């Protein structure tokens, strides 16, 4: 190993492995790897080409680093994969056509740039939403995988102990339908999409410019806060679809998100000017009446709080039913099966 070029190659290889490891481990692995490579090269005769052969034998540094870390080399493992595919397909089938139809109707209602461009914009919005949704679902499942969540609410061995009593009673199966969770997902996605969309689209136009419904000042804090809550809500919907039953952790997460939603809207409607003054003025011009901001805000807050409370009570009751069912050993067929 006289040639500087080979030394350089070895150093680059060692660095490529070590930089992927935690600092303290990486330094030690680098030191050992250097000696090992030198040993392996020496055993082959120590020629220039032997360095390349040795590095080829050790293989891709990214893979070797993974071996050292002993971390999973996949985003979504075999346990979650079937549910992942089902949720992904279901979500795409609901959200993409919905976005396509909504944007097409909106674009063609008021074809600012002509029909062909309107259709193109609709297709583009649908494709973009599809890509974003696919990415989001995958991300959530990757997080669930790393958190040790598995279908049926049971936890995998690396995530803790699994209790046979947590098996759902015979015949009960899922408590939460995938369709329901997907509908929740679609609603949350549309809410998010609408908040962004209304910025550039409105029933009112002044000098060709659309008049947004929501006050522009909300974009500083309130809209980002809503985005965070909606993303949390999306995560809970995916969790619901995967789990299928109301586990304690899932109920806690669902109630937390519901509370956040209700608190957010009550605080928003009570303290902020939500509808932009320009929109109210246009409304007044058109209808001759003052915009009924107070009534709309109260009705909206009442609906959100009602849905949040109702859904929370619902899931807690379902959770209690499941617990009681498991404790009593419901599932009438079990005794007969033993007698047979």
């Amino acid at each position, binding site marked *: 190993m006289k040639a500087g070029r080979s030394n350089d190659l070895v150093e680059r290889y060692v660095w490529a492995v070590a930089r992927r490891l935690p600092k303290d481990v990486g330094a030690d*692995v680098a*030191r*050992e790897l250097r*000696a090992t490579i*030198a040993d392996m090269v020496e*055993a082959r005769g120590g020629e220039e080409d032997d360095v390349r052969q040795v590095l080829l034998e050790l293989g891709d540094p990214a893979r070797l680093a993974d071996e*050292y870390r*002993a971390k999973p080399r996949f985003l979504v493992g075999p346990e979650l994969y079937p549910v992942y595919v089902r949720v992904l397909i279901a979500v795409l089938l609901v959200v993409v056509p919905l976005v396509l139809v909504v944007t097409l109707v909106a674009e063609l209602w008021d074809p600012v740039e002509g029909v062909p461009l309107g259709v193109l914009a609709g297709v583009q919005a649908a494709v973009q939403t599809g890509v974003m949704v696919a990415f989001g679902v995958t991300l959530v499942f990757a997080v669930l995988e790393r958190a040790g969540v598995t279908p049926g609410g049971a936890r995998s061995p690396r995530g803790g102990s699994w209790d046979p009593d947590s098996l759902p009673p015979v015949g009960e199966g899922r408590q939460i339908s995938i369709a329901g969770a997907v509908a929740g997902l679609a609603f949350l996605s549309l809410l998010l999409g609408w908040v962004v969309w209304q910025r550039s689209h409105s029933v009112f136009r002044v000098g060709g410019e659309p008049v947004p419904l929501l006050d522009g000042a909300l974009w500083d804090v309130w809209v980002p806060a809503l985005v965070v809550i909606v993303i949390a809500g999306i995560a809970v919907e995916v969790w619901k679809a995967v789990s299928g039953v109301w586990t304690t952790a899932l109920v806690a997460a669902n109630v937390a998100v519901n509370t956040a939603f209700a608190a957010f809207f009550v605080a928003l409607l009570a303290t902020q000017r939500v509808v932009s003054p320009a929109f109210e003025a246009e409304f007044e011009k058109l209808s001759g009446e003052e915009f009924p901001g107070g009534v709309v805000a109260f009705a909206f807050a009442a609906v959100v709080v009602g849905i949040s409370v109702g859904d929370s009570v619902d899931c807690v009751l379902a959770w209690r039913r499941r617990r009681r069912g498991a404790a009593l050993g419901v599932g009438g067929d079990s005794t007969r099966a033993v007698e047979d």
Partner: protein
Amino acid sequence: MDGIDDVLAGHAQELRRGSVVLACLGVLREPRYGYALLDVLREAGIEVDGNTLYPLLRRLERQGLLTSAWTTDEARPRKYYTVSPSGERVRERLAAEWTALDASIRALLKGKGT
């Protein structure tokens, strides 16, 4: 048949995988560094790749089955691994497991047709 050869290779690899740990715990009664261990294992007919063996040694060390020490009196500094007392206990148990498994498999293979 190419297909069968691939299937065979896959199953053979599965069979060998766990045995490398036992072989390491056997050889490392005396301190050895990574490449020397690889050499001994290959001489003994146990084929194992460096990129499997070197990370495995670290994993066994983390599990407390091996201890390690750096020597600096040689031409290049090397990390020597030795079996720890708990590693020796694990080796005994695994060796017993190996023998029992061998006996069971032999009996099953001989008993075919009954």
